[in-house]
């Protein structure tokens, strides 16, 4: 075993290593380096987007992007046209399932069989109703709808005095309508003053229940509802026609948008009604 701690041995190794003489680098090294740098620069200037791969092949970024975009486009196209075709009986086994896709409803699809209904839907009165949130809220009330089906109630509510009396009932205390009648001075006075209302109130549980709703009481001050209630046939239609009820029950946003469109309100309601009827 060599003892490297022996100074002679260490010196010997060092001396031996130093026996290897310095070797001059190739005389062309500097030129070779500089020409390689220059040629690479020139190549980059000519093909800025070309990148060398590890295997020495050249692949252009643009080509990559074009290939990727083409592949994506082909996939989308195949998806849209349903390629490859699926034979009958093999749907959803291999390939895309042929699901039913219903087309969007267009104006041409709207067919109203009732001419009177169509006329009402296009009337100013209906437009007023759709733009009056208070009236719409009241007409959404099931008890109120039910009460309007009763002739006595319709007759009573056709009177502006009755509507004013109901409208003056204090808001915020609505609860049990019978108890309300006892406690609310204005309602009691209205009932005492108007025999028709009193009769309707006593005979119609639906009306009593309806008057427990703040929405119904508030709507008595609505001009649109007043116009509706003063026309008995319209009241009947409102209470009986499912299509109209459906339209009035549509989300406020849709109706507000229709109202904002002004004259387009009629068409908006026309679109909504048939779908509700279906």
């Amino acid at each position, binding site marked *: *075993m*060599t003892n*490297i701690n022996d100074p002679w*041995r*260490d010196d*010997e*190794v*060092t001396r*031996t*290593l*130093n*026996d*290897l*003489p*310095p*070797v*001059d*680098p*190739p005389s062309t*090294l*500097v030129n*070779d*380096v*500089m020409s*390689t*740098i*220059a040629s*690479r620069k020139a190549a980059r200037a000519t093909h800025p987007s070309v990148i060398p791969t590890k295997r020495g092949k050249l692949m252009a970024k643009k080509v990559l992007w074009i290939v990727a975009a083409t592949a994506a486009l082909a996939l989308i196209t195949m998806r849209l046209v349903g390629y490859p075709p699926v034979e009958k009986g093999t749907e959803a086994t291999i390939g895309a399932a042929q699901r039913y896709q219903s087309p969007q409803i267009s104006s041409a699809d709207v067919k109203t069989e009732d001419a009177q209904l169509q006329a009402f839907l296009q009337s100013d009165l209906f437009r007023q109703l759709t733009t009056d949130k208070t009236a719409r809220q009241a007409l959404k009330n099931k008890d109120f709808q039910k009460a309007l089906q009763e002739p006595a109630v319709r007759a009573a509510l056709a009177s502006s005095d009755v509507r004013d009396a109901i409208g003056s009932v204090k808001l915020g205390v609505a609860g049990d309508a019978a108890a309300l009648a006892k406690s609310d001075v204005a309602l009691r006075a209205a009932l005492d003053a108007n025999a028709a209302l009193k009769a309707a109130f006593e005979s119609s549980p639906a009306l009593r229940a309806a008057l427990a709703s703040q929405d119904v009481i508030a709507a008595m001050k609505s001009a649109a509802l007043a116009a509706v209630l003063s026309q008995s046939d319209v009241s009947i239609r409102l209470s009986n026609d499912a299509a109209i009820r459906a339209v009035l029950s549509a989300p406020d946003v849709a109706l507000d948008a229709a109202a904002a469109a002004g004259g387009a309100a009629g068409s908006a309601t026309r679109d909504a009604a048939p779908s509700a009827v279906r």
Partner: protein
Amino acid sequence: MDDTGDAALIARCLGGQQDAYEAIVTRYQRGLFTVALRMLGNYEDARDATQNAFVKAYEHLNSFDPEQRFFSWLFRILKNECLNVLRARRPFQSVSLDMPSDRAADPVEVRERQKAIQTALMSLSTEYREVVVLRHYTDLSYDDIAAALGIPATKVKSRLYTARQQLGELLMDWRVAR
């Protein structure tokens, strides 16, 4: 390998003056080539590795940290090139240790001795060979070598100790064989 003025030359290179890099290559070609030759033991391989190292250094010059010694940074690039060459060699592939023709004038005995030393160097592992080469064939201090290799100076010394010990064994065998 005086690195005085390296910063100015590098700044000029980064400014687009290619001739400044020529000055850098001229300045460091001998040191870098010697290291490559001693690491690879083959003249042609050393030339290619040195050339590649200089080209790559130029292409990545903007990533050079001026706080470092330029030669240390160059050496790290060269080391990677040398490792690529060594990896590409097949196991047990014999490598010609002949030097260029201008060395042919040396006496046979001298050439045999030099060949034996280079063979001994090539017998060392890359880790040991690089410390020996940097210590004996460049003017780098232990700290510079440590910085170039990315290891503590104490580890440089311990590796150098072990490498010399192994070289002593190898060279003793050669002397005995003669």
